[in-house]
């Protein structure tokens, strides 16, 4: 679709403002913009499987050096503001990053105990790297106060996400730091890593060599957390589903041969299953893909109460003798998510190779040591999140009700009957700071129904809520079958007599009820009431997957153009007077 082909003569309430976005700007934000290259190939999948023993077994620098990726990686620039050596962490970041298709360029300035913050150059993330024992004469209370003040200065100077790694700090001081909710600033606690590493955490012997009291082992452990969990959690969309194979992955054995009571739940497999249960509790979808009969799978879970995982933990189960890639496509359809938001675990390297040739899907090899598999699984970039929203807990229940909702639609005599039966309720809030983390998550992970693809940072969203000419309107959805939680955002800024939409996105879980226009119109009415204007501009950006949103916008604005491909401006009065579904209850 070309902007020049849009005929606007018959639609006087519409006008174009700027030329169409002709390039895809999604790459910056895509989980891995590597589709079609060697990362998603059988060779790439098998190489990453081989690396798992090195990366998630006993750490060894000599072996890490061998993990050099033949595939191109997405580059992220990390600026280090620190007072002790970061080089031993930086050198280990490469291998862990490459496993996830990431490459870290580290900008490290001179050691600075005063944290006077030199922010030359462009970076994607700020890392504060402090050995607080160097700050002599300060108790931990004073250190916390000083650090908060320095972080606020850093926050004011950049919209980049900030990760603050300060050690050694007692747990109480860490909790105090975490209580100060500065937008986009995270305080990972290194105390659990220190406990796990034991006496080898510090090594004063190597201070002269590396500039830090942290040992080489400690630095490798920190590198793993940074590369696989902390940096991706601050810079990448989340992984929403973990898909697992059954035989020799969740336990030792094959149910077709060993039968339900013959397969072994080793302590390591128990830990792996418990980890998956934990992910489920945090709102990550679990899905099962297995070459077994469904009846055998049901029998297995019924016969093994010792399994931490229950069949009910899985949002979908695909039991078939088809290629695994076919089953995985069915999982993506059932969960309504893209492959970039999924990861798959299987013990069969051949299956991983087949999948990698067919799908742009991140794979983890379930090796002989299930504890290593567990560590690898929890190191998939995007799986760890800094916090889980209320919606994370609702998601699995919500998706489970979609079949019942479809059944209501099939039996309803009319759309009015359907809506009456569902008892749909929409909730709206304006500039609710409590929900900003969820809003940030939504604008970053929503692909299909996302008109602008601006992907504002949490800091930018927070600034909008404080700006008298901007508003962030959130939309919540509930019906008698489930509470979907916060599923939509319309954020806008007034520029003279025009309201410019910064973000307009709806979660895919909210689609399918044909309420998109009603949801957005109510939000626009709120915005027009708070920020009176004559016109509303929708800055449309073309992404690889936002066709549904652009198609909706074209229809919504009464354009006969298939999909919106350029910025569109409409009369505000015409928009707010659009009809809405009256059978939907709305609360403000």
């Amino acid at each position, binding site marked *: 679709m070309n902007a020049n082909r849009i005929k606007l003569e018959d639609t006087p309430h519409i006008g174009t403002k700027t030329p169409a976005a002709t390039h895809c700007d999604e790459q910056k934000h895509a989980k891995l913009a590597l589709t079609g290259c060697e990362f998603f190939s059988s060779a790439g999948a098998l190489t990453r499987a081989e690396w798992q023993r090195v990366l998630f077994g006993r750490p060894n620098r000599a072996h890490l050096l061998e993990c050099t990726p033949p595939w191109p990686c997405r580059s992220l620039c990390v600026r280090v503001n620190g007072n002790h050596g970061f*080089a*031993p962490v930086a050198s280990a970041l490469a291998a862990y990053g490459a496993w996830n298709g990431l490459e870290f360029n580290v900008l490290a300035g001179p050691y600075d105990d005063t944290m006077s913050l030199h922010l030359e150059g462009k970076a994607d993330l700020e890392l504060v790297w402090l050995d607080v024992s160097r700050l002599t004469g300060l108790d931990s209370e004073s250190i916390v106060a000083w650090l908060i003040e320095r972080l606020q200065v850093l926050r004011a100077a950049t919209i980049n996400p900030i990760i603050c790694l300060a050690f050694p700090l007692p747990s109480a001081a860490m909790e105090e730091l975490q209580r100060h909710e500065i937008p986009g600033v995270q305080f990972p606690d290194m105390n659990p890593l220190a406990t796990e590493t034991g006496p080898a955490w510090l090594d004063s012997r*190597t201070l*002269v060599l590396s500039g830090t009291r942290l040992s080489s082992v400690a630095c490798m452990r920190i590198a793993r957390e940074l590369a696989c969990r902390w940096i991706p959690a601050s810079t990448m969309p989340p992984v929403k589903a973990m898909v697992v194979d059954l035989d020799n992955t969740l336990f030792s054995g094959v149910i077709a041969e060993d039968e339900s009571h013959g397969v072994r739940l080793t302590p390591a497999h128990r830990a792996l299953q418990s980890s998956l249960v934990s992910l489920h509790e945090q709102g990550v979808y679990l899905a099962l893909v297995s070459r077994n009969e469904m009846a055998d799978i049901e029998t297995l879970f019924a016969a093994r109460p010792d399994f931490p995982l229950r069949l009910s933990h899985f949002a979908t189960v695909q039991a078939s003798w088809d290629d695994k890639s076919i089953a995985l496509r069915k999982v993506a359809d059932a969960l309504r998510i893209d492959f970039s938001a999924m990861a798959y675990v299987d013990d069969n390297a051949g299956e991983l190779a087949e999948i990698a040739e067919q799908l742009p899907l991140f794979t983890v090899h379930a090796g002989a040591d299930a504890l290593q598999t567990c560590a690898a699984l929890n190191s998939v970039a995007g799986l760890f999140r800094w916090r889980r929203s209320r919606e994370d807990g609702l998601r699995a229940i919500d998706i489970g009700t979609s079949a019942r909702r479809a059944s209501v639609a099939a039996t309803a005599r009319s759309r009015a009957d359907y809506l009456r039966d569902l008892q749909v309720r929409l909730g709206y809030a304006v500039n609710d700071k409590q929900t900003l983390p969820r809003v940030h998550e939504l604008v970053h992970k929503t692909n299909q129904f996302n008109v602008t693809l601006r992907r504002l940072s949490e800091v930018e969203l927070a600034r909008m809520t404080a700006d008298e000419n901007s508003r962030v309107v959130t939309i919540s959805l509930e019906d008698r079958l489930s509470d979907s939680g916060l599923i939509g955002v319309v954020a806008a800024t007034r520029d003279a007599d025009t309201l410019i939409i910064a973000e307009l996105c709806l979660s895919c879980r909210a689609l399918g009820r044909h309420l998109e226009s009603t949801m957005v119109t109510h939000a626009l009415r709120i915005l027009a009431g708070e920020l009176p204007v004559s016109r509303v501009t929708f800055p449309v950006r073309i992404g690889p997957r936002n066709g549904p949103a652009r198609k909706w916008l074209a229809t919504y604005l009464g354009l006969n153009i298939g999909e919106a491909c350029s910025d569109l401006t409409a009369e505000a009065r015409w928009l707010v007077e659009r009809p809405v579904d009256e059978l939907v209850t709305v609360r403000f």
Partner: protein
Amino acid sequence: MSIASEREREQRIQELIVRVLRIDAPVVALVRSEIPEWDSLKHMELVFALEDEFGVRFDEAEFAALVSPGEIANIIKEHLAS
């Protein structure tokens, strides 16, 4: 320690140097001061890699003495012997 395993050890040291310094060829007869790639950061990386590879812990005085493949091999040999 047999001669064969000593040779294997020396070869492994060479491999690690090549990999850490990201150079094309082994540096058999050269010392650190003659190899521009062998800066302080690479030296740190090499020391840690050697410790992990051979299961030894160098002392602070030895950090500065690890300046050529031959010296490295000698120091590691002493550690393994003791």
